[in-house]
């Protein structure tokens, strides 16, 4: 051992047959990325990259490899890279998923893997879309607790059953995979969209909240829950496994129960 060597990763010498990082299988993939740069061309183009990736790599790692080693101009959003922040929803092989939760080995690596920005929102550059219309709908359903009673001195207690009622819709990470998979949203973008309804559902069915009626009235709009055609694209797209279509149906029933 020479003195110049940096601190070794491990003091224990592993025999070769136990293995280490080198044992992870590698494979070659073609990543076909939809590139768009309005400063160069108004037309988006497909760009292919041949990459050698590991069996533990995700689509996000492939995008990082391109951005860090091949073409630094590739633009995409990602923050936590662990499926929680909801920044890197994109259309991978025609399906909305999080790039950080999609393992390359689970995709068909014999064909090019296509990566596109999510549909229905204005593309700004490459895989980055303008999320403002999406968040505007989210804000309009008032996704915060509104309680008309006196402010308690302790926390607001809730029974396990009452908490269970809206548990599924608390999982939303606002990645827009659902809203941008909805064909009704693709057409004109006026529809509130599954994500806004899911986040309204989270408060409508919260026993501590007093503004459920206001939210139901907002979603009784022409562009509200009644535009849902139950195509289930949103439920399939949700990276958190939220039963989105069911949540929308429950909001529909709540509006009906209130009106009739």
């Amino acid at each position, binding site marked *: 051992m020479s003195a110049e060597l940096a601190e070794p990763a491990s003091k224990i010498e592993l025999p070769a047959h136990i293995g280490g990082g080198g044992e992870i299988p590698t494979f070659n993939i073609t990543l076909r990325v939809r590139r768009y740069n309005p400063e160069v061309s108004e037309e988006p183009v497909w760009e292919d990259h041949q990459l050698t990736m590991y069996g533990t790599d995700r689509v996000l790692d492939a995008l990082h490899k391109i951005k860090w080693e091949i073409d630094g101009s590739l633009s995409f959003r990602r923050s936590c890279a662990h499926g929680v922040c909801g920044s890197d929803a994109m259309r991978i092989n025609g399906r909305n998923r999080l790039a950080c939760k999609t393992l390359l080995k689970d995709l068909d690596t014999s064909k090019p893997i296509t990566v596109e920005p999510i549909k229905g929102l*204005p593309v700004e550059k490459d895989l980055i879309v*303008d999320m*403002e*219309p999406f*968040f*505007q709908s989210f*804000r*309009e*359903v*008032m996704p915060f607790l509104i309680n008309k009673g006196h402010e308690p001195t302790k926390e607001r207690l809730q029974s396990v059953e009452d908490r269970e009622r809206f548990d599924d819709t608390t999982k939303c990470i606002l990645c827009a995979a659902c809203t941008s998979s909805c*064909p*009704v949203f693709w*057409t*004109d*973008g*006026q529809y509130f969209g599954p994500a806004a309804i899911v986040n309204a559902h989270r408060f409508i069915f919260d026993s501590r909240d007093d503004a459920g009626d206001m939210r139901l009235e*907002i979603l*009784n*709009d*022409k*562009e*509200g829950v*009644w*535009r849902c*055609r139950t195509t289930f694209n949103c439920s399939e797209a949700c990276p958190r496994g939220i039963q989105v279509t069911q949540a929308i149906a429950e909001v*529909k029933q709540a*509006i*009906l129960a209130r*009106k009739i």
Partner: protein
Amino acid sequence: MSTDIQTPRSGKIGSGKIAPQYRRGTGSKGNFEMFAWLFMRLSGVVLVVLIFGHLFVNLMVGEGIHGIDFGFVAGKWADPFWQFWDLAMLWLAMLHGTNGVRTIINDYAEKDATRLWLKVVLYAATVVIVVLGTLVIFTFNPCPVVNGVQLPGGFCPAP
């Protein structure tokens, strides 16, 4: 320090640079879409009964499909029960279908003018068919006398 929570839909929240095609109109309150949605479900259930009842009576009962002729239809429409049955089927099927096509137009027409004209054509067609169908059911005369001559029909009483 007071917290100022802005009212929703004010358009002042956020950056305010939302592309115009994403802006929702402020009007159109009311429950029309809710009732339209409810009507689709209810009329659908009723239509299943009406249509399969219609098919069964016409194609299975008695001589079945071989018994269908002008006289069979005339006989059915002489009965107020079948008049009402066919009227309900006509109205529900037409409104159900029209509402379905209306939602398809809303979903797929991208320009306001296209949407308007498609709906004008749709509603005009619906009105014509519903009115004409209703008239036929209630004014149907199987034994018309034209210029004093009885038109042929074996089941008609002699003049």
